C-alpha cells in the first residue's frame, strides 16, 4: 500500500495547483467529456488538431480529486504537439507510469479518467458551421 506522501508527491501537487492548460479552447476541433461513475469525477478535453493529425493545442477542464485533475494536466503537457498516432500508442500503463506513484485499483480509475477521455477526444470532431 502506497503511503500518502508518495501518492501526493510535490510534482503532482504542483500540477494540481498550477495545471497545464486548464480551461477551454475556442479553436478546438475535437472534444470529449466523461465521468467516473464511482465518484463523479469529470474531465473534459478539447483539442485543436491540424490536417495532419497533430495536436496543435490541448486544454482540459474538470472537477475531481487531485489524482484525476493532476493526471489530466500531466497528460496534456505530455501530448501537446504530438500526433493522433502518438495518442493511440500511449497506453494505460504509460499513463500510470507518467503519474508516478503506484495506485490501488480504485485510484487507478481516477488516474485513467483523463487518459480515457483523451483516447476518445481524438476521434470526436466538433460540429462546426461555416468552416472547412
Amino acid at each position, binding site marked *: *500500500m502506497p503511503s500518502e506522501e508518495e*501518492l501526493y508527491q510535490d*510534482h503532482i501537487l504542483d500540477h494540481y495547483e*498550477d495545471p497545464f492548460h486548464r480551461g477551454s479552447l475556442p479553436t478546438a476541433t475535437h472534444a470529449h467529456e466523461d465521468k467516473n461513475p464511482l465518484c463523479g*469525477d469529470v474531465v473534459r478535453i478539447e483539442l485543436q488538431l491540424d490536417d495532419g493529425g497533430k495536436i496543435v493545442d490541448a486544454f482540459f477542464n474538470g*472537477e475531481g480529486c487531485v489524482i484525476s485533475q493532476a493526471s489530466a494536466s500531466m497528460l496534456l*503537457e505530455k501530448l501537446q504537439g504530438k500526433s493522433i498516432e502518438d495518442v493511440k500508442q500511449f497506453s494505460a500503463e504509460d499513463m500510470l507510469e507518467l503519474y508516478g506513484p503506484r495506485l490501488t485499483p480504485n*485510484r487507478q480509475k481516477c488516474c485513467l479518467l483523463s487518459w480515457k477521455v483523451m483516447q476518445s477526444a481524438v476521434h470526436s470532431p466538433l460540429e462546426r458551421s461555416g468552416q472547412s
Partner: protein
Amino acid sequence: MSILTTIDQVVLLPEALRRDFPILSENVLDGHPLVFLDNAASTQRPRQVIDAIARVYERDYANVHRGIHTLSERSTEQYELAREKAARFIGATHAHEIIFTQGTTGSINLVARSWGETNLRPGDEILTTVMEHHSNLVPWQQVAAKMGATLRHVPITDDGRLDMDTFAMLLSERTKLVAVTSMSNTLGTVNPIAEIIAQAHAVGALVLVDAAQSVPHMTTDVQAWDCDFLAFSGHKMCGPSGVGILYGKESLLDSMPPFLGGGSMINEVRLDGFTPAELPAKFEAGTPPIVPAIAMSAAIDYLQKIGLDAIHRHEQALVQYAYEGLSQIEGLRILGPAPEHRSSLVSFAFERIHAHEFAQVLNDRFGVAVRAGHHCTQPLHKLLGLSASTRASFYLYNRPEEVDRLLEGIAAVQKMFAPQGRKRRAQ
C-alpha cells in the same frame, strides 16, 4: 480535544465489546489501529456471528425444505427459527410475513416487480423522495416506465429534512405507493415514518420503508408504524452479506404473484403450468441464503443482547460529538440536519478539497476508514451542488477517541491541501 467533556460517558456502551470483533484488533494498516467509520456501507461482524457461520457449515449444513435426512432437518429448523427471530425483531405478527432475499435491493425489487406490475395503471403515481438511495429509486423508475405510472419526489428542507408540507401536497388519490427511507444514508436524517404512513394510508396509498440504515441502529416496530412493506439487509447489522429481509403484511403478500420462478416457490408443477406455494415459500425461489440467514439471526441475538435502545443512545452520543467537532472546522460543510434529527452518521464536504483526498489520507496516515463519493445518492448530491462527499458512519463499537482521530485527520488533510502557491516545473 477539549470538547471531550461534552460527551456523556454514561450513555456509551462498554469498550470491552470491541473485543467481540476480531477485525478491530487486526493490523490492517501498518502501525495504525483500525478506526472503522464506514458502517453505513457495511458493518463488521462479531465473533458470535462468525462462529455461527462456521458452526452451521461444520455441523448442521444441508439444503433446506428438501431432505428428510437429519442434516436437512437441522438446517431447516435453524433457517425457520431465523425467520421467527427476524419477525420478533421488527415486531411482525407472523413469521411468514418475513421473506429472505439477497438484501434490501432484492427486497425492493421484489415489491416493485410483483406488486408494482400487478397493481399500477397509467396515471397512477409512486411517491418517493430526493434523499433515497439508488436502490429505492431505480426499481420504481423501471416499473413506472413499464406500467405508464408517474414517479414523484418529495423535496427536502434547507437543513436536509423531508419537506412534510410538500409531501402532504403531493399525496392524492392517484398515489398508489410511497417508497421512503427511514434514515438517509447520506444526510443521516431520521424520517417521521409513522406520520408518513398515517398520511399515505389516509389517501389509500401503501408504504414501503427502506429501513436498511435504521433497523441496525434503533428499535423497529412494523405494527406500531402500520407498515405495509419494510426492507433491510443483514450486512449493515453485524450479519453476513448476501441476505436481507422483506417484511410485508400477510394480506398484501398473499395477493401478490411470485416474483422469481423456480424450485421451492411452487405447490405443484405440470409441464403446462404451476401453482405457487403458500407464504413465505412463494417468494423464495431456489436455494435460499441458508447460512447467511441463520448467521443473521445470530446477529439479531447479539444486537438484542446489547439492546437496540442502548445502541441508539451510544451512537447518538457519538454523532452529537462528531457533529460538534466538525462544526468547529472552518470551511467544512456538514450535510443534513442537527444531531437531534439524525442518527449514526455525518457526511461533510469542503469547497476546495475532494472527498477522495480525505478518504486516502485518513486511511494511509490515520488508519481511519471513511466513505468518499456519492454514496449511491447521485440525485441528492446534485441537489446539494456536490459531486462527492465524505461520510463517517458509526456503530456500537466506535469510541469518542476514534472521532478525535477523525477530526485530527481532517485538520491534517486541510493543511496538506491548502493552496501553497505551487508552480509546475518544466518537464
